[in-house]
């Protein structure tokens, strides 16, 4: 894991002293004032300090530390990484950056390896709807939400000019320079910008195990070069309203090394991504009771996939996809009387995809989301109920477009504290939602029998649990734990089924899955002495996800692929003056690579253990942080996805300098 290093440890350390003020800032599900363990729905947060410890190369690598999460990782810096939460599947998690959804209507899931963690302030996983208002209605349209916030919209940026620059380098040809600047141009306006480049060869060794044909090999065609950057402005006005503008760009070119195929190790497929968006949020509080949030966004996604060895008459594949989306949202919240608040939001998006593929129907999707949320808070009780209407219309230039879909879905959450000051909180939530078939599901033509009759895939979540959170006046200053049991159901799950033979596929709504699980999260920190601080967190998941699609099938009630019964993570760090050191473990039990729970399909469990040491060196005008890191210390050879080997032991050295 981890390639990026601690940009601006000191920069952000400075925030600690006035974190109370920082935390009041709005971002959606952003820097929260509230302890996540005090929320009436399961929320997991990695704050800046935890992110620095994990030192993830991208947000996917950090999200691996959440409970209930499977990051499907195809290995290496350039390997695709997608998230599945509580076995609901990769297309049921929404991704939100600085308050606005990042979507990909073509694949339905965004490759998380595109998002660097270097300039991220918080990474948060909301198991159901985030419990704050107002929010855009679209945020309610996913089963769970992975959101992250940049450090660009902190109000502390108004007060002081800051900068940082750094470089990570490590095993397998990793070079990663970055720089950021936060410039208050007036008392009420901040401009910030950051850039990062990544080069990695990804040529790590792995072992092919196949009897007399076993051999040591090196991952090839696994290189990546990526550039990303963003410019942000934050304005606050006399009426205390705020305006955020973010321009973000990403460009990468990488090899797709493919799965390990016995007797055939050549892979030449390449993938090029060019992504861009501009988004803006305006928040106005009319008075203490009424707030308005306006969000707009325009985004483009360009993808080019090439396979020069593809055996067609054109002498190779060169597929290009271009997607763009215009999005807008108005959300209003109002507090009525002592106990009630409500919120109304209305969103619209228009998404268009075109491709250079013959007979591609170039679909356009118009989506409307309308949400109504009501909150009730009174002494021991907190309630939150919401209803969402989704209306989706597809149009195609040729061929049949999917029929209009109009659905109502609902969510409900309740929290109870035995006493206002009690460390205990008991909670329950319910949510039902669906995901639309993606453009690929509906309109992808190559080797797929088009099925515009596909229905949405429904998921239902039930969760009951409790949290315990307490502060102490000892070496343990704060301790929190949450335990949640859950039951999820998926019906009409969209599955690609080989039809005529293994190479011709069709999409069908045939899947049904039953998921039971328990998530446990714990977090603690304290001080051994006035100069020795420590922190630790743990996440554990027990899960059972059974395929209940077809009682006559031999895989009926078998575990679905890639759902270990046991998985989790643990992190611990110690801070002594200018020094810090930490240790982390990720683990996964055995799981099946295929739908049939036969011993031949069983993948062994694995664990990855990482350690780091970091030290700050103050100079007159700036500060330097040097960090050394060993990832996968025990050089464990494992696959997350079968036949996509993960890197073994690797080393990383990082240097950051920043303004005092």
């Amino acid at each position, binding site marked *: 894991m981890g390639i990026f290093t601690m940009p601006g440890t000191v920069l952000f350390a400075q925030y600690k002293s006035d974190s109370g003020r920082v935390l009041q800032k709005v971002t959606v599900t952003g820097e929260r004032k509230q302890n996540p363990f005090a929320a009436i729905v399961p929320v997991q947060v990695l704050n800046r300090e935890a992110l620095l410890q994990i030192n993830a190369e991208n947000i996917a690598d950090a999200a691996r530390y959440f409970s209930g999460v499977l990051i499907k990782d195809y290995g290496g810096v350039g390997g695709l990484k997608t998230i599945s939460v509580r076995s609901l599947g990769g297309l049921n998690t929404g991704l939100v950056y600085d308050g606005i959804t990042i979507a990909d209507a073509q694949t339905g899931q965004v490759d998380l390896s595109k998002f660097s963690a270097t300039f991220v302030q918080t990474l948060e996983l909301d198991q159901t709807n985030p419990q704050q208002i107002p929010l855009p209605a679209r945020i309610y349209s996913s089963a769970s939400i992975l959101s992250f916030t940049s450090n660009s919209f902190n109000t502390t940026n108004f007060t002081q000019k800051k900068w940082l620059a750094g470089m990570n380098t490590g095993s397998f040809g990793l070079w990663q320079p970055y720089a950021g600047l936060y410039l208050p141009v007036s008392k009420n306006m901040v401009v910030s910008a950051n850039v990062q480049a990544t080069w990695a060869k990804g040529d790590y060794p792995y072992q092919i195990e*196949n*009897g*007399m044909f*076993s051999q040591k090999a090196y991952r090839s065609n696994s290189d990546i070069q990526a550039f990303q950057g963003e410019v942000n402005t934050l304005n606050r006005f006399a009426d205390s309203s705020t305006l955020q503008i973010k321009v973000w760009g990403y460009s990468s070119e990488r090899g797709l090394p*493919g799965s*390990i*195929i*016995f*007797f*055939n190790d*050549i892979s030449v497929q390449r993938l090029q991504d060019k992504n861009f968006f501009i988004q803006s949020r305006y928040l106005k509080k009319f008075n203490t009771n009424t707030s308005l949030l306006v969000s707009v966004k325009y985004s483009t996604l360009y993808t080019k996939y090439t396979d020069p*060895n593809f*055996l*067609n*008459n*054109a002498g190779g594949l060169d597929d290009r996809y271009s997607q763009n989306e215009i999005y807008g949202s108005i959300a209003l919240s109002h507090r009525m009387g002592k106990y009630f608040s409500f919120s109304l939001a209305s969103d619209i998006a228009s998404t268009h995809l075109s491709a250079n593929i013959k*007979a591609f129907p170039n679909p356009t999707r118009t989506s409307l989301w309308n949400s109504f949320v009501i909150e009730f808070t009174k002494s021991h009780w907190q309630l939150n109920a919401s209803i969402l209407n989704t209306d989706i219309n597809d149009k195609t230039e040729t061929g049949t477009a999917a029929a209009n879909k109009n659905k109502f879905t609902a969510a409900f959450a309740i929290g109870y504290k035995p006493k206002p000051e009690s460390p205990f909180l008991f909670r329950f939530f319910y949510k039902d939602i669906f995901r639309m078939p993606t453009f690929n599901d509906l309109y992808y033509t190559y080797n797929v*029998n*088009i099925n515009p009759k596909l229905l949405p895939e429904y998921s239902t979540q039930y969760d009951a649990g409790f949290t315990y959170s307490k502060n*102490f006046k*000892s*070496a*343990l200053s704060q*301790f929190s734990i949450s335990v949640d049991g859950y039951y999820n159901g998926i019906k009409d799950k969209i599955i690609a*089924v*080989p*039809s*005529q033979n*293994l*190479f011709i596929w069709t999409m069908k709504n045939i899947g049904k899955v039953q998921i039971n699980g328990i998530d446990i999260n714990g977090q*603690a920190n*304290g001080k051994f002495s006035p100069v020795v601080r*420590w922190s*630790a967190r*743990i996440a*554990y998941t027990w899960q059972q996800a059974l395929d209940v699609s*077809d009682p006559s*099938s*031999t*895989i009926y009630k078998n575990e679905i692929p890639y759902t270990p019964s046991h998985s*989790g993570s*643990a992190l*611990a760090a110690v801070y002594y003056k200018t020094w810090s050191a930490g240790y982390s*473990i990720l*683990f996964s039990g*055995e799981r099946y*690579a*295929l*739908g*049939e729970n036969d*011993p*031949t*399909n069983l993948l*062994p*469990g*694995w*664990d990855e*253990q990482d350690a780091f040491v970091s030290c700050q060196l103050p100079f007159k005008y700036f500060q330097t942080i040097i960090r050394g890191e060993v990832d996968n210390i025990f050089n464990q050879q494992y696959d997350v996805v*079968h*036949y996509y080997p993960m890197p073994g032991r690797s080393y990383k050295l990082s240097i950051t300098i920043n303004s005092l």
Partner: protein
Amino acid sequence: MKKNKLYFPVVIMLAFFFSCSKDNTPAPPPVPPKVTTGVFVLNQGSYGANNTMLSYYDFTSATQTTDFFKKANGFGLGDTGSDFIIYGGKMYIVMNVSGYVAVANSITAKFIDTISFKNAGVNRGPENVVAAEGEVFVSSTDGTVAVIDTSSLAITKFIKVGSNPAQMVVAGDNLYVSNTGGFSAVFDSTVSVIPLNSLTESGKITVGMNPGSISTDNTGNIYVACTGNYGATAPSLVKVNINTNQVTKSVDSAFGTIRYYNSVLLTTGGYLGAANVGIFNPDNLVAVRPSFVTDETAIENPYGLDVDPATGDVYVGDAKDYVSSGEVFCFDKTGKKKFSFSVSPGISPIKTVLVQQ
């Protein structure tokens, strides 16, 4: 001080727990049973999962042994086996995605050699295999038919044919190869003709769009199942007179695999057709009866279809949903089930070949 110590033992326990659970090195494969009389079944596996397996079903003991090849040799075949034959005391297993042909003893399955199908490192995509006159022919997606010398096991020649050839049949003095063109935007519609005495393509016969499975009645006709383009061009079944190279009959019907035997044409529906085993009159290409199966046997997804030429027994490989274990059914020539067996954990049984010692 006491409380915070609680946490670290938990971390250590977890680490211990997982270092314990990972020592699950699989047991060495048991010795395979002795092959007497039965069938070998090639199970294609799942793409990218390196799980192509050979099953052996023994008639006497009525037991199935899965992954027979690995048990005999200690290594797996690799990815996506697409065809195999037994010829001249050897078995030839065509590994499409792994890009080679495995050659093994026809009785013991003991490994003899690999024949690589890489062209400057790039997989040619070997697909189908037939044998005739002391030579083995393998068609590949890259538009070639390889000629393999059965004693040296070397490829002596690549015969250029149409694009993305699929299946082959020997009829009369010629080898016929269906050219699908399935990897390109516009599909092919031809069958290549290769005289066995020249081993060079002498011409092409236009059949229907996207020709796949091909069979012969050995009395001057070949039959070709054409899949069409999944859109406006419908699938068809085409009969060709090989003396005139003319299409003599064509009907709109969707088939996956076709096999001629003893004056009937047996079919599987493939994706576009009905999921059953059909029986057709080769003269007019009209169904003899709704289903070849005449008893209550239900087959979910007929995939492999093979006829034992000696007895007329019909073997149907049921691919189910292509992700769970397959099953093989044996019917007598009247369509009554004789026996069936699971090939678990083998997936997608594509080919059944009789073995006799």
